[in-house]
């Protein structure tokens, strides 16, 4: 049994999500290969080769793969995929884009957002916005999964010494990359931050999020938001935590002015410690919070910033 894990990276850095996905591969058990597909991504391959449990790193480089567009990635993974018993990618927007494409080319179904490995063919995943957990057994010849990274503790980044092998990569692309606007920030990435401070509709406007940024900077935290805050235009969508946004599971999650709609809870309820600050003591967020503070956030947040 050999498992292929597709690396998440930006051509210069291997993303942590890859290490969580490798943990899911380890739970299945077997030889583990990592595919690094991109352009000028040699350093990423070196990093992947030293991750624990990896026996081989395949590197595919071409202009068409530079931005890991779904079509080129899908073709590549399908081309080499029939050699493997399992193919895993992190359930990021990149993995979700190309992996179903590869699965269809290999004529198999796939499983999205896997949160548990029961055996080599039986996996758990959330359905209905996380309101139920379904366990499926698959009879597909190749088991293809995207992995919810917060559900698996990362393997060690060091300790391995896998062989690196270059493989052929096609240069044809049917979509063209135009541009990218990525949020520039010195703060930790939302899905990898040890502490997340999130704001909701209670913040009333985008300017008031400054308060959360100040608190976050003092704590080395990332800032998130509820869908209500995003829909109201307070902050951009890439801050959204929830079933339709990002899934986070930090050590400490502070929900400020967030009522706690089910779709928001789906994105953060696996956090280790949850704090809720809300002036409405009936807000559903208090039902999942370890520590609840019924208070006016405009007084509580500045005070909290002073005390931490």
């Amino acid at each position, binding site marked *: 049994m050999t498992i292929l894990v597709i690396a998440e990276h930006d051509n210069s850095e291997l993303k942590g999500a890859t290490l969580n996905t490798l943990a899911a591969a380890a739970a299945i058990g077997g030889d583990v290969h990592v595919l690094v597909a991109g352009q000028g991504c040699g350093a990423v391959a070196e990093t992947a080769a030293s991750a624990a449990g990896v026996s081989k790193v395949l590197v595919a480089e071409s202009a068409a793969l530079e931005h890991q567009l779904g079509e080129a990635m899908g073709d590549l993974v399908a081309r080499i995929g029939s050699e493997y018993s399992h193919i895993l990618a992190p359930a990021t927007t990149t993995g979700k884009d190309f992996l179903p494409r*590869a699965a269809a080319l290999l004529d198999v179904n796939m499983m999205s957002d896997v949160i548990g490995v029961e055996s080599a063919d039986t996996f758990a995943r959330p359905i209905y916005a996380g309101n139920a957990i379904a*366990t499926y057994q698959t009879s597909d010849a190749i088991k293809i999964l995207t992995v919810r990274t917060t559900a698996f503790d990362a393997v060690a980044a060091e300790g391995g010494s896998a062989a690196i092998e270059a493989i052929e990569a096609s240069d044809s692309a049917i*979509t063209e990359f135009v541009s990218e606007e990525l949020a520039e920030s010195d703060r930790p990435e939302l899905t990898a931050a040890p502490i997340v401070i999130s704001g909701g509709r209670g913040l009333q406007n985008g300017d008031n999020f400054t308060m959360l940024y100040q608190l976050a900077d003092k704590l080395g935290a990332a800032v998130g938001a509820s869908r209500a805050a995003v829909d109201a235009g307070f902050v951009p969508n890439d801050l959204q935590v929830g079933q339709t946004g990002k899934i986070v599971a930090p050590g400490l999650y502070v929900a400020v002015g967030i009522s706690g709609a089910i779709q928001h809870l789906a994105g953060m309820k696996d956090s280790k410690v949850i704090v809720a600050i809300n002036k409405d003591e009936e807000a559903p967020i208090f039902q999942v919070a370890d520590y609840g503070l019924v208070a006016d956030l405009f007084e509580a947040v500045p005070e909290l910033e002073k005390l931490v």
Partner: protein
Amino acid sequence: MKVLVAVKRVIDYNVKVRVKADNSDVDLANVKMAMNPFCEIAVEEAVRLKEKGVASEIVVVSIGPKVAQEQIRTALALGADRGILVETDATLESLSVAKVLKAVVEKEQPQLVLMGKQTIDSDNNQTGQMLGALTGMPQGTFASEVAVDGDKAVVTREVDGGLRKVSMNLPAIVTTDLRLNEPRYASLPNIMKAKRKPLEMTSPADLGVEMTNSQTLVRVTPPAERQPGVKVASVEELVDKLKNEAKVL
């Protein structure tokens, strides 16, 4: 330009699902059903393309039980021109659904296929990409903006770090994300008019597709409940608890 929109009948967005006592599945008996919200966004986008004069005809297709006609009628009331129901009572898995849609695409020859990025029942987020693979069409997934210009589409995609723009030749597949648009409500006259719009009934067999299943549902369980916590009286007490009890600060 012909636009094909795929829609699915799912549990209503506002209903909280419950797991059956024997853990065999979720309980959908007597639950309100509706069009998947991401599919509504796809229908709305198609209607806007028609209003702009970019789309000439909107065909809406659904795969599912006979009652899924209701969701097709909803799409017709929102502005789609005609409907196709591929009737089946089979358990729907993404690959079979993508194969049925491929057969519909071959028959209808749309220039653009619009679909939701995922359905809120199985939350798979797979079918659009699979249809792309099977038809060889390019895909713009998780779209927050779609600009059609001649035989090209430029799609702005919601990606983890922000936004990414990709350009592709038509025909293409676009899957919708939440911020693409805000769907309208159907007016009563349009609901009445929709009843007279054509709705073709067909089946997977008619389209030459066999509905297969490779995933067996072993069990469904409710998610782990969090133990209710405590209320603190002040910010000082909160900071004290976080430092000394939870030890996270």
